[in-house]
């Protein structure tokens, strides 16, 4: 049984001009200890999916359908208080900007201890000892001394290490990391990614790594889900998705990544832009930009289909009945 199972999840935003569907009928699974990368452009619904899983969709956003199961138990319809006990304890979260993720008015030690004592029966002193261990583990030098420092006394990279310590401090089974390195310097990004990867391996924690950076995914993830306009376009192992992409969108995405040492004349470019939520075309949402689109793509919406490669793609090219094209 998968650690996390998302089935036909649908996230809606009621607005004055009608209901916007930010996440449209997506399904995915994460196994114990697995790193699932979720990539896509801004607005593809990756962060919404993450927020829905940790139960912190910003109102008026709401889960309109489907279910989310953690270790087999449904968690999408839990009352707030029950979900609160799961957040932090079973599902940790890391957000994009370490500079704003920590409360500026409390020491990092206090924020750690507070999180630990909220979810465990540890005494204040034990929690403190545990927190200091964690800080050393995430690579904060002189953790004992830095325990009583305030967030503004750390650099961005160090703060993200503290954030990781906070996300891991009660040993959750899953961490939803939403763009954990986007706000950091490139040189720091690699360190943080390596740290996250190592820690999660050591603790056996699964990660849902949300990013728009294929490089990060390629380096870290076991499997990848590519999202486009609120749906999953393609899903498979990192190797298959990066090397043998089947969905025209993924192909375009991979072709647009510059690689050092590869002598490519021009990077490919996907014409156009992802549709806004208000004007998603009928049929496959990608059809107006797709170089391989045919009639069926404009009328019917494809679900994930097994491709001729190892991945699954939401593309009519891989429907056996229409394989004549």
């Amino acid at each position, binding site marked *: 049984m998968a650690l996390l199972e998302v089935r036909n999840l649908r996230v809606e935003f009621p607005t004055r001009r009608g209901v916007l569907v930010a996440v449209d009928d997506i399904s995915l699974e994460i196994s114990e200890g697995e790193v699932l990368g979720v990539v896509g452009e801004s607005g593809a619904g990756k962060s919404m999916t993450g927020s829905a899983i940790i139960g912190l969709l910003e109102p008026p956003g709401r889960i309109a359908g489907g279910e989310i199961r953690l270790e087999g138990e449904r968690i999408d319809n839990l009352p707030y208080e029950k979900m*609160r006990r799961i*957040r*932090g304890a079973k599902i940790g979260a890391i957000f*994009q900007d370490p500079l704003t993720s920590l*409360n500026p*008015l409390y020491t990092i030690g206090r924020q750690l201890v507070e*999180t630990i004592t909220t979810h465990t029966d540890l005494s204040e002193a034990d929690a403190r000892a545990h927190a200091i261990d964690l800080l050393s583990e995430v690579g904060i030098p002189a953790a004992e001394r830095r325990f009583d420092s*305030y967030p503004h006394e750390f650099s961005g990279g160090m703060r993200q290490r503290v954030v990781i310590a906070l996300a891991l401090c009660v040993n959750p089974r899953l961490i939803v990391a939403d763009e954990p390195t986007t706000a950091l310097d490139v040189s720091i990004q690699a360190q943080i990614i390596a740290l996250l990867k190592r820690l999660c391996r050591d603790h056996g924690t699964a990660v849902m790594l949300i990013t728009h950076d294929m490089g990060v995914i390629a380096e870290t993830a076991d499997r990848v889900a590519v999202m486009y306009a609120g749906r999953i376009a393609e899903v498979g192992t990192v190797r298959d998705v990066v090397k043998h992409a089947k969905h025209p969108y993924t192909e375009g995405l991979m072709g647009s990544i510059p690689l050092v040492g590869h002598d490519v004349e021009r990077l490919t470019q996907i014409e156009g832009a992802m549709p806004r939520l208000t004007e998603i075309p009928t049929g496959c949402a990608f059809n107006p930009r797709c170089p391989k689109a045919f009639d069926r793509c404009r009328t019917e919406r494809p679900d994930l289909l097994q491709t001729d490669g190892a991945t699954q793609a939401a593309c009519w090219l891989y429907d056996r009945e229409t394989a004549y094209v």
Partner: protein
Amino acid sequence: MLAYVIQRVFQSLLVMVVVAFAAFIVFNFVGDPVDNMLGQETSAEEREELRKDLGLDDPFIVQFGRFVTNAVHGEFGISYRLQRPVADLIAERMPATLELVALSAVLALVFGVPLGVFTGINRSSWISQLILIVSLVGVSLPTFVIGILLIYIFAVNMGVLPSFGRGGVVEIGWWSTSFLTVAGWQAIILPAVTLSLFQMTLILRLVRSEMLEVMRTDYIKFARARGLTDRAVNFGHALRNTLVPVITIVGLNIGSLVAFSIITETVFQWPGMGFLFIQAVGFADVPVMAAYLVMIAFVFVMINLIVDLLYFVVDPRLRADKAVAAGN
């Protein structure tokens, strides 16, 4: 931090000197005190004599120096109207005003802050909407209208609370307090409520908008993601982050409470400094006016100083500015 404190104290002193200067000018140039003190038929020699006795022939700067020296010692001359030392008059009236202001400030905080937090968190509940509408009344109705309204309801119609005066006061040394008798409490309720209502609604609305602002921040979202209890998130993390602006406004408002108390004291015939001041204005009693001006300025300056120091307590980023600048 010590440098900062010294700097702020120095600035405060400067402000006080400027205010004293203004008060001094009012005191001296509104009219010739000698004319006020002597009759029409005094000779020019006698006038000169008195002028000399009072030191009014000294150079301007010397006179100002003397005024400041006296003011520091709490001496502001003799009231024209009551023929008593202004310092004594103020000392008599001050407890009444300070007690009124203190109770109003407490009321404003005790109701304003929690209601602000409540309406900030439960943004769309109908109770919040109701509180906000009522608070709009508090912000927009002038103090004297509220005072008169309260007198009409509770003193005239229901007859449960007195409409003027301090009721029973108990003398403790030179301080007279309303807080030790039932009559005193009954007398102070209406003026205190009147005076606090505006501040209360102001604090409520300020706390609410700051809460709304803070609730949107990443660290609140992250605090929720860590599974902290609502109580810890709302009060431990959110409320504390609203405190810097709230302390600023509350501090300034306590100053304005002292100033606004003029109106409330007049409406309720409250024997405080404001009432004394209004009577002094009517009589062109310059020494009293000058002393009142200096007193109010002193209160404002002191509150500002305390507010600036409180920032350090609330926000660690200010404490460590120096360390950050030094690259630590």
